């Protein structure tokens, strides 16, 4: 920089280049480690890779096999149930808690970290703890029985048809506080004058929120949706720690499916094909969001 100062022309040119130079390591890393690797996975999905990558192409064979596997369909259906319940519940709880916390609550400083702390825990910890709590033999059911409420029943985690909902419970527990924080931030960002004006006009609290506040929170809803949706598609650790995909294979999700086919079943080609489908799903969710994100600001 000191040398550059002596030669204004060079300096100007340098100034033009600095921003791009600063950006370049990140871009280079991204091109190699993200898009390069995605290309590699796409390639693998068309190859006959089993244990380690192989470069012999087999066309769409892996995709055909993938869609013929009942386990994959189970995983897709589970993802549908899990993702929709997870996103809706988290958003609802997050919104309600944020609105309630915004009512000049005494002890907000205490409550907020309590709502937020699950986000700080790893899924290994969360899964282990919830597995315990929901286990009928030692968890809540047992405690209730010991306290005398013997008809209490909560054995979803052992029930093939209900187990996926226990995953929803644990996942909601983990992230709803974070969603709350996003909505709270959104609420605190709303100009109070608008609300005051509306109240003077005689709007009730309910219609105030329904008509004015919630529409103003649109960006927060969008961010929450994107974050929750991609977390749902990526969900892996929680399943492993909570149910291990069981009972039977009742809580298998695409991420666990992909992992097991790639790494434990030595069918890397099929695993790669499922990864490509997952990526396409995420891309389908993300692209409109990215588009809006990019259009909005200069």
């Amino acid at each position: 920089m000191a040398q550059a100062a002596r030669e204004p022309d060079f300096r100007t040119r340098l100034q033009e280049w600095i921003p791009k130079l600063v950006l370049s390591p990140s871009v280079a890393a991204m091109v190699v480690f993200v898009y390069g690797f995605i290309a590699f996975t796409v390639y693998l999905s068309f190859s006959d890779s089993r244990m380690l990558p192989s470069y012999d192409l087999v066309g769409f064979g892996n995709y055909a096999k993938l869609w013929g596997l009942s386990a994959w369909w189970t995983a897709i259906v589970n993802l549908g149930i899990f993702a929709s319940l997870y996103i809706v519940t988290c958003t609802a709880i997050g919104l309600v808690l944020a609105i309630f916390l915004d009512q000049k609550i005494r002890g907000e400083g205490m409550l907020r970290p309590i709502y937020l702390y699950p986000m700080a825990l790893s899924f290994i910890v969360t899964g282990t703890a919830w597995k315990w709590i929901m286990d009928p033999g030692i968890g809540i059911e047992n405690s209730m029985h010991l306290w005398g409420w013997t008809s209490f029943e909560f054995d979803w985690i052992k029930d093939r048809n209900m187990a996926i909902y226990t995953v929803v419970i644990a996942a909601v527990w983990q992230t709803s506080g974070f969603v709350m924080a996003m909505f709270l931030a959104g609420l605190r960002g709303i100009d109070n004058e608008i609300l005051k004006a509306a109240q003077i006009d005689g709007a009730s609290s309910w219609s105030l929120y329904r008509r004015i506040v919630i529409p103003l929170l649109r960006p927060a809803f969008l961010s929450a949706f994107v974050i929750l949706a991609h977390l749902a598609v990526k969900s892996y650790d929680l399943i492993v720690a909570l149910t291990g995909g069981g009972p039977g294979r009742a809580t298998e999700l695409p991420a666990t499916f992909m992992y097991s086919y790639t790494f434990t079943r030595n069918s890397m080609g099929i695993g790669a094909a499922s990864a490509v489908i997952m990526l396409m799903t995420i891309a389908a969710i993300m692209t409109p969001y990215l588009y809006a994100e990019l259009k909005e600001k200069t």
Partner: protein
Amino acid sequence: MRNTFGKTTAMAAVLAATTGMAQAEDVEVLHWWTSGGEAAALSVLKQNLETEEIGWIDMPVAGGGGEAAMTTLRARVTSGDAPTAVQMLGFDIQDWAAEGVLGNLNDVAEAEGWDAVVPEALQAFSKYDGNWVAAPVNVHSSNWVWANKAVLDELGIEEPKTWEEFVAALQAAKDAGKTGLAHGGQPWQEATIFDGVVLSVGGPEFYRAALIDLDAEALGGEQMVEAFNRMGTLRSFVDDNFSGRDWNLASAMVINGDAAFQIMGDWAKGEFVNAGKVPGEDFLCFRVPGSDGAVSFLSDQFAMFAQGDDAAKEAQAKMASAIMSPEFQIAFNTVKGSVPSRTDVDASPFDSCAQKGMEQLAAASESGSLVGSMGHGHANRAAVKNAMYDVITAHFNGEFTAEEAADELVNAVEAAQ
């Protein structure tokens, strides 16, 4: 010019020295034996090697019966940084050998005469293309039943000899308000039971035809339907809270007298012994009724990965030799509940269950009724094994009838091949 040359050689010398120092006398061991007893047994090996001035770099990755460790291994091998030795089961060894990444132990095997002392069924896994690639640590077998003797005495039940007697005993336990069969609902545990049940239905011939040779007629035939029917019978004696339970908690149910029986490999014995129980007095060990004489085995082995320089190869050979030494075999296997992987080890330090196991293993090996365990990757490659897991687990959890399960088994195996 001379200067540069001098520098380069100096550099090369330093490099050689440092890499030599880092690798020559260290072995890096990837394994999932992380619990107290197993890890303690493994540290015997570590100490043995240390007396030969070979350092031990520990790489434990627990979870999922080695699934996490296998992922780690794949990453390590792909990055060109394979560990010295990796704990491995059955066909996984063959698969890795087929990728051409395993080393060669022929020299040490020949010098120590492994061919003569290791049972042939084990050699089928420790050798690839006639070359030794792995050192077997032990032999487990999966078709064992563990019973609480006090419970059986209380109910007036003798050790069941046939399948019908076994079912009657389970029923008696259930009637007395106990859990008949302690079981943990994880796919591999159900597959472990399946090993014993298939043997009890059709003996080693049927087992071999169906689970090893994958003969479609055997896989989907009457006998397989019967096997699934028996799985269904067993399911009716399991408590409702079984799903996802770890196997050692199921063992604890038998130990505490809450349950009468558990079908599990002989590693379960460690749980009983740790709880201060004496084999023959407090608990009984016998083969899954109907499968007497047959043994479905599995063998933990250390697969040896190809190493670059000679010093590393030497350390690796020393490690293999230490694993096969009778002292280590005794020290490790008395703790682990398994039996030694060589036939010439003195049986006297072992307890009565292990002695019984050693005897039966030798007899089964003799008579050709020693078969690789399907549930633990000694019958088929991972893709087929897991396809079978899917069907067995789905049936056990009530998704299929026995007939549907047998049909589905044929389809799943075909799809996985």
